[in-house]
């Protein structure tokens, strides 16, 4: 098991290096750089261009592309993630600041959607063809058909501004130290973020459950006189669970991606919000690290999925 994990992780390295090179190259091809973004356009007309050029040089932006890439990648490989160009903040600090927020949001959404999605999907499968099933299917479809930022805006309008039940946004306020203090802030973004995924999980759980229920061992279990709940849950759901977990695992990085928009809507101080502003201000080192981090998240998630599958389904052997 451990050697398997180690090997999988090792194969990630060339992949990550190639990807980082491609991103670096891509950003290199775009006009402008972080320095030009430090100046508001309204003020640009009267700035001293020579001074800015000096700043470029001092930030190392004047060096040839490959040299910069080399400096950057060797730094990263030694654990030095570099500094954000705009404010000189160590990227590791930005990550430490933002990552918990994004993880908190993603995991909350993941939990909501997993629990809700698998329960609803199972209900839907068990009542196949009924009105419940059909309504759940349509509602689920509706869930994946409404732009999530739009959902978020309407939710803010209703729950924060009209009903005043929940805060409009943000993650915390001064003095809100415990998780429970902050919980009201988390509710809306997590719910909205989880909508799409709940619908996805539900749909998937339904078909996975239907598939499991159509299998022979379900008939065997019934033929043994097992009660329905045991047939459905212990035999059906347990088997249906594997593909659902696989789906959820693959969704985790998607969630990190999906939170980009939700973080904007709800002023959630996470990685996604940081990424958008880094992209806008061409803060290469930061863009690179966020992109790489998300790639790593995808790759590691797929590894975790493999491990989880192996734990859940005894038939699966990890490839040697």
């Amino acid at each position, binding site marked *: 098991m451990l050697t398997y994990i180690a090997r999988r992780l090792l194969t990630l390295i060339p992949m990550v290096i190639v990807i980082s090179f491609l991103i670096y190259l891509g950003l290199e091809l775009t006009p*402008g750089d972080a320095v030009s973004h430090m100046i*508001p356009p309204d003020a640009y007309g009267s700035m*001293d261009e020579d001074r800015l050029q000096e700043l470029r040089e001092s930030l190392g932006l004047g060096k040839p592309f490959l040299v910069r890439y080399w400096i950057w990648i060797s730094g990263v490989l030694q654990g030095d993630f570099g500094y954000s160009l705009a404010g000189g903040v160590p990227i590791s600090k930005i990550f430490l600041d933002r990552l918990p927020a994004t993880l908190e949001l993603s995991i909350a959404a993941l939990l909501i959607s997993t629990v809700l999605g698998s329960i609803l999907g199972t209900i839907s499968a068990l009542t196949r063809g009924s009105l419940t099933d059909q309504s759940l299917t349509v509602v689920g479809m509706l869930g994946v058909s409404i732009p999530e930022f739009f959902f978020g805006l309407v939710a803010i309008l209703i729950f924060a501004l009209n009903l005043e039940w929940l805060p409009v946004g943000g993650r915390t306020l001064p003095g809100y130290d415990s998780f429970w203090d902050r919980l009201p802030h988390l509710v809306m973004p997590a719910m909205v973020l989880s909508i799409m995924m709940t619908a996805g999980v539900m749909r998937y759980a339904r078909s996975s459950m239907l598939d499991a229920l159509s299998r022979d061992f379900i008939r065997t279990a019934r033929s043994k006189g097992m009660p329905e709940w045991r047939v459905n849950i212990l035999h059906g759901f347990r088997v249906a669970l594997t593909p659902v977990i696989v789906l959820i695992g693959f969704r985790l990085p998607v969630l990190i991606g999906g939170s980009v928009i939700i973080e904007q809507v709800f002023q959630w101080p996470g990685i996604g919000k940081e990424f958008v502003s880094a992209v806008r201000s061409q803060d290469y080192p930061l863009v690179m690290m966020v992109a790489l981090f998300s790639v790593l998240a995808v790759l590691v998630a797929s590894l975790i999925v493999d491990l989880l599958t192996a734990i859940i389904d005894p038939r699966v052997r990890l490839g040697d």
Partner: protein
Amino acid sequence: MNKLLRTSAIAIIAAQVAGGVSAQAINESELSDPRVRQAIAYAIDMETIAETLFEGAAIPALGLTSDANNYPEGMNSYSYDPDKARELLAEAGWDGSRTLDMVYYYPDQLTADFMAVVQAQLGDVGIDMTYRLLEGDVGAQISGVPDDPVNGPSVVDWDILYGARAAIANQEYFNRFAEGEMPTVPTVDALVPLVESVNATVNPAVQRAGFQEMEGIINENVYILPLYYQQLYIFESDRINRNGAPYGNEQYNYNFDVVNWTVEPNEDGELVAYTNGAPMQFFELPWQNLGIWVHSRYAFDTILEADGTLTPIGGELAETYEVIDDGMTFTFTLKDDLKWHDGTPITAADVKWSIEAAAQAPITHPVVSTTLSRIEGAEALASGDADGMSGVTIDGNTVTIKFAVLDPNVLLTFSQFAPLPMAYFEGTDPLQIQQNEFWQKPIGSGPFMIEEARMNEFTTLVPFPDYHGGVAKIEQIIALPSADGDANLIRNAAAFRADFGYTKNATDVPSLEEMEHMTVRPVNIPYTRMFWINQFPRG
């Protein structure tokens, strides 16, 4: 206030222009023909746009500066007149075969809507126009100057730029008309000496005469088409009481006496006020955007103090100050017992170091940077021949600054200039001063000190007990990271999470005005939105 400005403008335009326009193209570009530019001016119904689209939150512009005292008699208001526009186009031989490429750099919806309206109005007189948002390196795309200052070809790749000039000194509006500085206008010989003259005097009368003459020439030829004056809107919830403190240009530092403000206690009996402008990743050097952010407003004091219109009115950190030698020497004495927020004394050495660092920092505000670059020894410092400026000398609490070149804005500069504690910047290259970790939680000199800074979440400020102007009455200021023109500002305000702040975004104004707990006050600021019409042929 809004009305007042408008009527004064109308009074002036009542007189007819006495023409002296060379009514023909001066190079291959049709846009170098003043009649075409005038036609554009006539084609745009700015009055109606200001009233409807901007819902009154814009004042149609007459000159580049918004101060009617700078206008000569007989300014042409180019009131909406599509027939006149068509006539001028016909005269100029405009055949409609050219589609103008309009660019802009504000990503908001209102700007896009404004562009759509302008497109329709230009189309109405026979000028086809498409518009696009500039991306990437905006600065480079709008500031390139042609090698040949008459025939071009132009370096910038567009026909019209919609942008703005936000200035604290009137000279900023005109300085680019100096020889070979303007990306869009072939050098206008008549303007070159005028630009020089307004920069070389501290005499307001001389400056005004220069501004009037320049405004007249630009207005007549539509070298730049001023569209409207942006106002700034201060909003304030009914919890806040300014206790008589004035309102002014919130983008810059002015005396708004925050020490004496009070706020209604919250449920816990604490005097907590919310505002916006907290940092997202780091606190910005207060030398760039001089008064926008929460820290530059509350945590840093400037040498001098300005009123709401940014006219210097006295000392802030300085006890006394003086301009002597016909403006070539500026000297001031710091108050006694000034302290940084960490309790260490603010010294004249801190000030000298700050002046020298600001002169070298790449992103210092242009007006400040121009003033500092005219100090004796600035060039030697810039070229690396000297470690400091020979023109800045200190004696106890007194700082004396000698200028090599006369600067008209010395007092203005020092009313906006906040010194930093040099102890934290040892070994820092001034070029990378913004990259210093100091900016994660700066130590300032103002009435409030930063208590907690959680980037992208909030910043809290508490009164500085050793403040030279007394201890502030509000017990805590909580700043959220929303900003001017950010949709979140309105959401926070609606959710009672913004007790005071400002916006320049016309879309925000009606929203804020509709909130029962909110009062919105428009403030006239020097901020003109305009079209730069590219009069060089495109390469």
